[in-house]
């Protein structure tokens, strides 16, 4: 059986533009500050946790593909470049990288602007905005930046479908069609999206950003973590309610112990959390709930959960980590990572050089 190694991580979140920023925010275990977002027509603002401005202007913004793009493309690009840094460093041409991008809401900022212009006067709606409204735009920009990207796919769904994105990337690796696969999830926010979420949770704090895992079958590229399992996707249906689907997912995950961590999607909303909380009621080990700290990141959230778990396992704090994805309206999935032993930093310089050109 092939082993699938995590060879890089990337994160852009309300905590900042790096994995380190995400790590620090989660380690502090305190909700990040909330900002008001004016909702036209309402006196009371909506609540958001926005991505802070990057400390320096990202150099990728000079790439012709990214000059007129919206924040979602910037988040995706930054997370992607961080995740593939270790396997691309110094290689020309770089490895063949597959790109899977997962979205729930997608390119809402340019979509809003374009439709607003459409309703004002369709004759003058901007042709520069429209191409950036399609779900496939962030994937296209990431592919252009990374250059050697033979396969690219965008998946839409609720956050649990990030697991299907990982599975698709693994298929490409096992088929030998790519050397590495970047599985990204990204979202951006605006008032209309925050308004939509408000209908389901008046206390919702929406957040944007991106998370990325780079996977490979090559043990020489391992960051010290491997993907051990992805459960089946357990869909909700007329016959299978969310609670049952979450329990079915839980049943496919190992029981767990104190040497493992569970990263869940609980959000201090008893009714919405009930299915997931019930499924993991038997869990006695340590637990991490990033939504409480980062906000409702939609599709970015499962990627942040995976990044956080991989980072903790790579650091040696835990031998394994479990990610619980009980989606809002589609299905429940679970993902488990474990320590893979040596890391790329353990390799001798000669081996490292060899690994980077194999």
């Amino acid at each position, binding site marked *: 059986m092939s082993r699938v190694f995590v060879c890089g991580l990337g994160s852009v979140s309300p905590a900042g533009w790096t994995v380190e920023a995400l790590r620090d925010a989660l380690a502090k275990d305190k909700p990040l500050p909330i900002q008001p977002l004016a909702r036209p027509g309402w006196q009371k603002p909506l609540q958001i946790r926005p991505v802070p401005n990057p400390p320096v202007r990202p150099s990728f913004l000079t790439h012709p593909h990214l000059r007129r793009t919206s924040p979602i493309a910037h988040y995706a690009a930054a997370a992607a470049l961080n995740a593939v840094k270790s396997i691309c460093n110094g290689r020309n041409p770089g490895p063949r990288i597959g790109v899977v991008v997962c979205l729930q809401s997608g390119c809402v900022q340019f979509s809003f602007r374009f439709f607003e212009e459409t309703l004002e006067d369709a004759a003058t709606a901007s042709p520069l905005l429209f191409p950036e409204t399609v779900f496939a735009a962030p994937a296209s920009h990431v592919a252009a930046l990374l250059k050697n*990207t033979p396969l690219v796919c*965008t998946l839409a769904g609720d956050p649990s479908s990030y697991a299907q994105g990982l599975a698709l990337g693994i*298929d490409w690796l096992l088929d030998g069609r790519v050397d590495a696969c970047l599985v990204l999830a990204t979202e951006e926010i605006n008032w209309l999206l925050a308004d939509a979420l408000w209908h389901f949770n008046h206390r919702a704090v929406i957040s944007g950003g991106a998370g990325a895992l780079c996977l490979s079958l090559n043990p020489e590229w391992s960051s010290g973590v491997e993907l051990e399992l992805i459960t089946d996707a357990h869909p909700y249906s007329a016959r299978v309610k969310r609670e049952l689907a979450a329990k079915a997912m839980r049943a496919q995950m190992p029981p767990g112990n104190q040497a493992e961590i569970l990263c869940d999607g609980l959000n201090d909303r008893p009714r919405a959390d009930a299915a997931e909380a019930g499924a993991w009621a038997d869990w006695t080990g340590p637990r991490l709930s990033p939504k409480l700290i980062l906000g409702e990141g939609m599709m970015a959230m499962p990627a942040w959960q995976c990044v956080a778990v991989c980072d903790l396992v790579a650091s040696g704090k835990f031998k394994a980590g479990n990610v619980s994805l009980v989606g809002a309206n589609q299905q429940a999935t679970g993902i488990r990572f474990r320590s893979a032993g040596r890391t790329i930093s353990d390799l001798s310089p000669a081996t490292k050089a060899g690994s980077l050109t194999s």
Partner: protein
Amino acid sequence: MLFPKKSFPSPPPRVVITGAGIVTSLGLGWKQNAEAFRSGKTGFRPVTLFDVSRQRVKTAAEMDLPPTPPRTRLTRREEKRLDRAGIMLLLAAQEAWQQSGWKTCDDLPVVLGTTAGGMALGEDYFRQAVNLPHRQRMQPTRALYYQAQIQAGMVEDALGFAGPVTIVSNACASGTNAIGEAWEMIRRGQTDRVLTGGYDALSQMGFTGFNSLQLISPTCCRPFDAHRDGLAIGEGVAVVALETLASAKARGAEILGEITGYGASMDRHHLTQPHPEGDAAYQSMQLACASAQITAGEVDYVNAHGTGTPLNDQAEARAISRWAGHHAGRLAVSSTKAGTGHLLGGAGAVEAVVCLMSLRGQWLPPELAFETPDPACTFRIVARPEEAPVKVTLSNSFGFGGVNATLIMRRWA
């Protein structure tokens, strides 16, 4: 488990189509569409769904929906939540489901391609949120049912089955990618059956988008014609029931055709423009032929992406010419977008079903408005209805963003 994977079966199972449903401006269902595609009928008319008074072009291939959704297991209340795209999807899915003879089950995956899902609901949400900020009625329903995975779930509930849903959104290649991914799921041994396809309904945003880019023809859509001046927009859905040959034979199911190859590639040239030489299109066709273990000389008919825009058709013509090599002279090519318009996320799936019709009926779908070939065409454009022996077809789809995809199908006889 999605991972670890079971060992891939060797050799991979053959994958056949045992059900197909199609809905376009040319008609509801296989029969009406087959007659229309065979004769080269077109389905364009003035747009009535939204205001086009300020649009550069005011026509599209808008379809007539039946006054009520088809009767299924959905309640009347659930039916009311379906938007135009959802109803179209349900019509095509029901036709494919009934033809396949599949029964209620809890493990049937659905893989669908779409660019917009329930965009009309999103547009309604926007209007109400902006114009009536304190009115909340219907907004939660719109926010939910706008999402493509919910529409797919409605199809499952309507037809009485359940299974994991995958939504592929690779712009205009989505439908072909969805069928291709479903085909690969079966070939990898992950499942015996998949319900798959692509869909998109007309939306004000999409129509305005292509108008704003000045990509819509002010005259008529003439793919590969030297005087072509743009594409036409349409709406449509196709859904197919895929299963292993062994499964179909065990059930005694009627086999409509076989999918034998799939290729996908990436064009990084530009977000909305193909590489002038059609490199990624060429690669996609090559990969599809390699997976089908055939050469270009064995393909009888190509249903081209053929949007009718100057850039796409020139690049695709160069790619087809390069791929076909010395076989190009005998190759029949047409783009059925001349009749249906560009169906965006539905295009690849509808065109796959057109190929299936061609294989079943032994005819080639013509482009009646075609007159003068683009100089890049070294192949023959089918310009008149014709009967022809068709054993193998190839269908191309290329999307904004650069994803290219190709499907190869074989006649089942």
